[in-house]
């Protein structure tokens, strides 16, 4: 029996967290994601006993996540761009200590205090590390309210499988808009000793969660281990969606909400007789390098579209290794591009048509 509901993206994500058996949420209000904290404050404790705590800052929330994640519980936080910036030190610690947890960034326009409108300006911060040192998050980019919900459970699965923080990178529009969403059944909250967690000393010696390794050879070993893990993740966890790329002359690459607008642009193009396909990376790290290279090998050109000044486009260029010309179209500051605008840019850049 399907359970369908009309929900805001942020609320669907919060509801999915409760149903996934999440144990604790620590967060701080910021638009456009406060609904996550608000929804959980209303719903979580009474339904599953999940801990929900409004912290005094994003710095505090991410460090509460660090503490709670070290016990092996399912823990999460969410924020929007300025708040994510504040969390970066903590995320770096979490990555080094290899703690599983879920982070959510409902991206808004920046830099600075910016705007509360949707944007994708945090791509670099999300997929290239963000904080100090060499580390990666697993980054999932939903493009529907349904995926906002579905990626919660997937994130926890991946986080525990790899002992790595997972980030859902979404934006203000997806967080705020309402769509029909199919909800999963309630999972039980369970708790097991994972062998590395700090839950009170067991029979052996005390366990330690730390990111401090003073000896350089030890620190290098940790780094080598992390890089190996990221490689495995790159080999096994790529997720990508492609539409009508088989016969396409031109291919649009885009993630999240923008990919949906690009699908519409591609439809408009086909109506005009221009064969356009769309590739949507679902995991931004690991990035679908091989898939993009393969799917675009017969294309005359790639248009990368983002709500930023051109960030993922660098990874697209690296993926195709100069074999296909890559152009970029972006809107910034919270402006969402329209399908017509995207098609016009594609024609302008590759066909030299409409002026």
């Amino acid at each position: 029996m399907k359970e369908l509901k009309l929900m805001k993206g942020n609320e669907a994500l919060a509801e999915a967290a409760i149903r996934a058996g999440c144990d604790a949420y620590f967060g701080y209000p910021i638009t456009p994601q406060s609904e996550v904290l608000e929804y959980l404050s209303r719903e979580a404790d009474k339904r599953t006993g999940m801990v929900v705590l409004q912290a005094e800052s994003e710095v505090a929330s991410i460090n509460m996540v660090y503490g709670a994640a070290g016990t092996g519980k399912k823990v999460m936080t969410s924020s929007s761009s300025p708040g994510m910036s504040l969390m970066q030190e903590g995320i770096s610690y979490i990555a080094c200590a290899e703690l599983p947890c879920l982070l959510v960034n409902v991206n808004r326009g920046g830099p600075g205090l910016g705007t509360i409108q949707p944007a994708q300006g945090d791509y670099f911060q999300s997929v290239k590390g963000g904080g100090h040192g060499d580390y990666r998050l697993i980054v999932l980019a939903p493009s529907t309210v349904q995926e906002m919900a579905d990626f919660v459970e997937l994130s926890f699965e991946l986080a525990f499988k790899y002992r790595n923080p997972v980030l859902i990178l979404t934006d203000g529009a997806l967080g705020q808009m309402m769509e029909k969403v199919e909800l999963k059944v309630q999972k039980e909250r369970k708790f097991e000793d994972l062998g590395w967690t700090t839950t009170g000393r067991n029979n052996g010696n005390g366990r330690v969660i730390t990111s401090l390794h003073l000896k350089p050879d030890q620190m290098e070993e940790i780094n080598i281990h992390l890089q190996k893990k990221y490689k495995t993740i790159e080999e096994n966890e790529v997720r990508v969606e492609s539409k009508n790329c088989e016969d396409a002359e031109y291919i649009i690459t885009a993630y999240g909400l923008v990919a949906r607008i690009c699908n519409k642009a591609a439809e408009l193009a086909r109506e005009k007789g221009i064969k356009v396909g769309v590739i949507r990376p679902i995991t931004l790290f690991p990035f679908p390098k091989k898939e993009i290279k393969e799917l675009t090998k017969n294309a005359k050109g790639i248009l990368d579209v983002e709500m930023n000044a051109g960030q993922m486009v660098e990874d697209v260029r690296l993926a195709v290794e100069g074999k296909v010309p890559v152009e970029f179209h972006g809107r910034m500051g919270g402006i969402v591009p329209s399908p017509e605008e995207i098609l016009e840019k594609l024609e302008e850049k590759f066909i030299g048509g409409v002026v």
Partner: protein
Amino acid sequence: MNERRMLDDQHFETMIEEESICTSSNVVYDAPHKALYDTPMHYCPGCGHGVVHRLLAEVFEEMDIIKEVIGVAPVGCSVLAYNYLNIDMSEAAHGRASAVATGIKRVLPDKLVFSYQGDGDLAAIGTGETIHTCNRGENILILFINNGIYGMTGGQMAPTTLPGMKSTTSPFGRNVETMGNPLKITDLVAQLPGTVYVTRQAVHKPVNVRKTKKAIQKAFEYQQNGGKGTCFIEVVSNCPSNWKMTPLDSNKWMEENMLPFYPLGDLKTPSGKEN
């Protein structure tokens, strides 16, 4: 080794066989081996950190709570506290130990959670976390080692550095006009309704060591009995290396200068009585 000492040693050896006195029935004083690792000491001679670590280990053993406690280490000289304390521990980012402890306690409310923090960690970069953790009345113990200086990074001024006190970043003495006044954060948290037990102790003399141990024990007892708020213990301590004094002189200096400014005793107890 001088000649006299050699003679004495030889003399001693002929008098008594070592094995005959090293028996368990003759032990009058031993380390709390169950909770304390036998590990090379990285703290400077005479430093208060080592004494407080040992007290923690003694309390864990005596209260039989080794499996119940989870500690949070700070960034500071005591960042490696987990190399001494054989319990589950988490190492926090600079200043965030009480937030990390909050995270642990909230998901494991039956465990006994404590943070161990220096003055820079707790009263400068982590002031926000300290005050809000205490204000929420998290049922944890915050153990605060106030040596009036940044020990780990080599003797810079701390929020608790006394007026006129020299450090590498107040080389002519702390000028309160430009550098601000020392922060009595313990007095501050005692004002918050979230704290139940706030006390200031020291470990420079046997009597103070005993009092500090008693305070730690009480704090864990309160937490064990369902703790209705945060326990906060300040230990006024020394840093012989960065104060550039011998251990003995540092204790004397501490007594003469730190204690008048940071007077010892309870600031708040669950019964409301001060002792």
